């Protein structure tokens, strides 16, 4: 049973396990430092499909199949799947999961979707509403680019604060196997808007949401950043990460020694032309399900706060001059149960 610690923070008393997980990634990601941690690496981001949207759906198909396979499970074993992506109407997910036949709840949390889906899957499992629940998300550079920015062959110049949408997906299955990694708590974020309007500076737009969620969680649990081996944000990138640390310093919370960001881990910022780092649902998802969960399982990390951040705008509202609201959800992962 989940216990409410404060308004938005839940302690998952039964410590649900992540019984299986998988990550897939595209070409640029396979040239990055985490390449060896991904289950499938695509050498062609078209993945043999006619359109980028179909390619993204294919990633979701592959990553869910891989996660089921690694856990010796079939789709029929899963009670619910919580999933979403960045495409309009979440079509990447809808077509990707079309043939699986698992009761489905679609989510839109922009790039926070991995944490959002994992929160819900864990809560459902913790309270006995699901034996096994799946959490999954993806993003595809080309599909995002044509929807949010410009056609791929358009000759544009990126600003130094711009981030690179990760082509990748992550999927994890929550259940009760009594093996690590465990989910010990979750904290649901609030929509936070500090008035950033620059669509090429998403990290800055999302950092206040992450700061708010983390502060709320630490207050609720009475813990300090040093109680964790890693505080991992989803895709704040270089600029957003710096702003997160500065915002928390103003609240006398020092996280620099334990903070990292999936967008900084997935690429080599020096040699890969990604400016401020990676972004997208697939950024947090593939780094979590590829790299971090393995490290918790191996006991390299004991307690990790995974906090995926999302920018909740659309190209339309940005053109209308609206500011960019952000959100961040937190999941407390551990190698030991409560």
């Amino acid at each position, binding site marked *: 049973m989940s216990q409410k610690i404060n308004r938005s923070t839940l302690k998952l008393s039964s410590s649900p396990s992540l019984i299986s997980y998988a990550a897939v990634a595209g070409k640029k990601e396979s040239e990055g430092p985490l390449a060896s941690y991904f289950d499938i690496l695509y050498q062609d*981001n*078209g993945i043999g499909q006619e359109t980028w949207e179909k390619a993204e759906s294919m990633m979701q198909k592959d990553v869910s199949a891989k996660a089921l396979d690694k856990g010796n499970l079939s789709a029929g074993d899963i009670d619910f799947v919580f999933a979403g992506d960045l495409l309009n109407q979440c079509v990447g997910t809808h077509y990707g999961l079309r043939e699986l036949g698992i009761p489905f709840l679609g989510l839109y949390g922009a790039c926070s979707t991995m944490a959002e889906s994992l929160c819900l899957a864990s809560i459902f499992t913790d309270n006995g509403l699901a034996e096994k629940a799946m959490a999954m998300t993806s993003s595809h550079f*080309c599909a995002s680019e044509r929807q949010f920015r410009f056609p791929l*062959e358009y000759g544009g110049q990126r600003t130094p604060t711009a981030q690179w949408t990760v082509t990748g997906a992550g999927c994890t299955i929550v259940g009760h196997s009594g093996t690590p990694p465990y989910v010990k708590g979750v904290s649901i974020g609030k929509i936070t808007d500090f008035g950033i309007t620059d669509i090429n500076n998403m990290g800055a737009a999302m950092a206040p949401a992450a700061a708010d969620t983390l502060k709320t969680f630490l207050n609720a649990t009475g813990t300090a950043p040093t109680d964790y081996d890693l505080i991992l944000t989803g895709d704040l990138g270089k600029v957003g990460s710096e702003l997160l640390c500065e915002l928390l310093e103003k609240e006398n919370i020092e996280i620099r020694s334990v903070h990292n960001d999936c967008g900084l881990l997935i690429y080599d910022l020096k040699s890969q032309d990604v400016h401020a780092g990676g972004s997208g649902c697939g950024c947090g998802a593939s780094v979590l399900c590829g790299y971090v969960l393995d490290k918790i399982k191996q006991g390299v990390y004991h307690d990790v706060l995974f906090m995926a951040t999302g920018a909740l705008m659309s190209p339309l509202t940005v053109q209308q001059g609206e500011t960019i609201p952000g959100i961040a959800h937190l999941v407390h992962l551990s190698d030991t149960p409560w």
Partner: protein
Amino acid sequence: MDYLKAFLVGGAICAIGQILIDYTKMTPARILVSFVVAGVLLGALGLYQPLVDFAGAGASVPLTGFGNLLAKGVQEAVQEKGLLGALTGGLTSAAGGVTASILFGFLVALIFRPGDKA
């Protein structure tokens, strides 16, 4: 000599565009629109043609040159047909460039596939 003039003037016009990108919040699409309208304005004031005479392609290849072309077209058309020329002059002078863009755009889209970025 005309190559040097084309290089310097063309380069300078592009550098102005880059300064606008770097130091203002203008998006590339706004810069293109501004350059064409600026070209029409400078052409109308008779300031752009001397630059074209001096620098040749250095002044006619940038989009300001396209704007100047529109202004020149309108000028000639109004002389010929009066009020009707105000409506026909601009696009008539731009017809070659726009039609070529449509044609080559169509052909390229027909033949090639969009690819991933490196």
